[in-house]
């Protein structure tokens, strides 16, 4: 038993040690100016949560996560449905590969691809100009958040598609046949027979998309770097870290971790309950 559980134990202990380390220093005033950390209670948290830039970055991260959960699931449901009803397996594999391709690439590479696409001279604007549409300052302060959101959809929807498609493939084909014989058309079958049976995909895609969006770093950093008007929580954290406000950085990390846990634990419990009750 001990041998088999040792990898989980070792990683678990390491992870918990890091967590404890982070939360320990978040209650100190450790920074460039206070090289010897002193315990200050909740003072660092208060400082962080009253800093408008940090609060804005946290809000932005949560908004991005919520939007990505909504958009990612929607894309997953629509695209997985289209792929599922494709008769041709080869076609399905080709389309699926294209959809999950961004996931297989480093996010920083995705960031640079879109940096070019959002370029005012020769990216999407080139097409816009050709079609006579007004040019958009994609990565300016006004639109940067939405431009980045668009890229996260492009990058992460494939994940939801995989989960939905896998769950759809798990629905017994006889159930679909039964619905056909009962008189249902393809759309009705998808809406009323298939989707209610893929709730597992909704749970896992929502949890993962939320986490990916919350901790997102390389994508926005690669596209807009350190811009206080559009930065997300982890970039803000990174800025505190490189400016050697260590306690503040650990406090932001603590908050992000707490949000992640608050969102994921109920999902995990719900999933576990379903798993146990339905075998």
């Amino acid at each position, binding site marked *: 038993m001990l041998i088999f559980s040792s990898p989980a134990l070792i990683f678990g202990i390491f992870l918990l040690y890091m967590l404890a380390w982070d939360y320990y220093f978040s209650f100190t005033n450790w920074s460039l100016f206070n090289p010897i950390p002193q315990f200050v209670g909740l003072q660092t948290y208060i400082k962080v949560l009253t800093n408008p830039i940090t609060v804005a970055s946290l809000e932005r991260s949560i908004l991005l996560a919520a939007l990505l959960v909504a958009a990612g699931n929607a894309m997953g449901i629509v695209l997985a449905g289209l792929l599922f009803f494709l008769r041709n397996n080869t076609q399905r594999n080709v389309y699926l590969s294209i959809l999950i391709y961004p996931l297989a690439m480093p996010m920083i590479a995705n960031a640079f691809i879109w940096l070019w696409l959002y370029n005012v001279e020769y990216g999407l604007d080139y097409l816009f100009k050709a079609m006579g549409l007004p040019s958009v300052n994609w990565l300016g302060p006004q639109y940067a958040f939405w431009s980045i959101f668009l890229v996260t959809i492009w990058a992460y929807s494939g994940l939801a598609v995989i989960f939905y498609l896998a769950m759809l493939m798990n629905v017994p084909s*006889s*159930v679909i*046949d039964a619905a056909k*014989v009962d*008189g249902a058309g393809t759309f009705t079958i998808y809406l009323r027979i298939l989707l209610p049976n893929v709730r597992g995909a909704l749970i896992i895609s929502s949890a993962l998309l939320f986490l990916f969006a919350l901790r997102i770093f390389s994508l926005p950093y690669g596209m807009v770097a350190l811009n206080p008007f559009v930065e997300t929580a982890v970039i803000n954290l990174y800025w505190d870290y490189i400016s050697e406000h260590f306690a503040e950085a650990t406090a932001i990390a603590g908050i992000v971790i707490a949000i992640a846990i608050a969102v994921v634990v109920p999902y995990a419990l719900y999933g576990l309950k379903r798993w146990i009750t*339905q075998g």
Partner: protein
Amino acid sequence: MVRVYLHEVTKIFGKNVVALDKVELEVKSGEFMVVMGPSGHGKTTLLRVVAGLEEPTDGEVWIGDNLVASPKKGVFVPPKDRNVGMVFQNWALYPHMKVFDNIAFPLRIKKLPKDEIEKKVKEIAEVLGIAETLDRYPRQLSGGQQQRVAIARALVKEPQVLLMDEPFSNLDARIRVTARAFVKDIQRKLGITTILVTHDPADALTLADRIAVLRRGVIQQIGLPNEIYDRPANVFVANFIGDINLFEGSIVGKGNEMYFDGGDVKLQLPSNIQGIANSQNVILGIRPEDIVLTKEAQLSNNDLAYVGKGIVEISEFAGGKFNVMVKLQNTEIKVVSSTSFSLGDAVNIYFRTSKIKIFDKQSENIIYG
């Protein structure tokens, strides 16, 4: 009620997997047709072609006066427009719906008014004895109840044709008998044209008005249950529909004095026998219950042909009868007997000549029986 007619229906999967090969089958209006055959020999494909879940490669499918599938004429009516009810092998209930919603689903698709749906669902649930399960989920039901829900769902829309795919194979042996009686009863009450496929001869013999036997996608024989059992078209059908002893040998003699010589098994054939000739190679078949064993002196009865003296090897009680294995020199013979024997008993073996079946050795088709 309507008839179902398959005319030279062929179904080929991929390049060369022939599931159905020129199947010609007419199910009369209100008839209970059982299609039998081993697994993977095209039974389910036949049902799916009738339901519209598969498109035939060639041939025509008629439901009533409607041509529903004909590749040559470019006709294919999808399942939703065929008005057939189907009971699947694993019942295929919608797992996320309660029993009521499962049964109501076909009616909701038809957009019937709410109160009418409720009335119809309750009616059919009453008939099938599942009224008290309506607000449960399928996973909370027993196998027998799930099957009834599947039947209710198939029947609630008052289909023209009922299709059942191995409906008893997922049931316990004990429930199976009651379920069979129940299905037969429902079918008779509603008088609905029914096609049931099964690999179990017991299903076929008890339920069917007529039986069709499929082998590798080819119909071997269509007939009444007793016809199929007593006069099987070939060795395959004889073997598949029930236990049978088969002996290879040749015919000796001519006219009214003909004998079967199978080495160990030798007997005189009935004098009225026709269609066989001296020295023809044949297979002789006789079912275990058509063999008589006695310990006493020889019987004399016109219908019984003496075969020889054998030794009882196995005699096991099988509920009201005994399954006996007798060894006649080097040949083992299966017998169903009403009396028990002890191991090692020497017994006289008689075949009922009226029940003997003779097949041609080459074609395995029946010559006499």
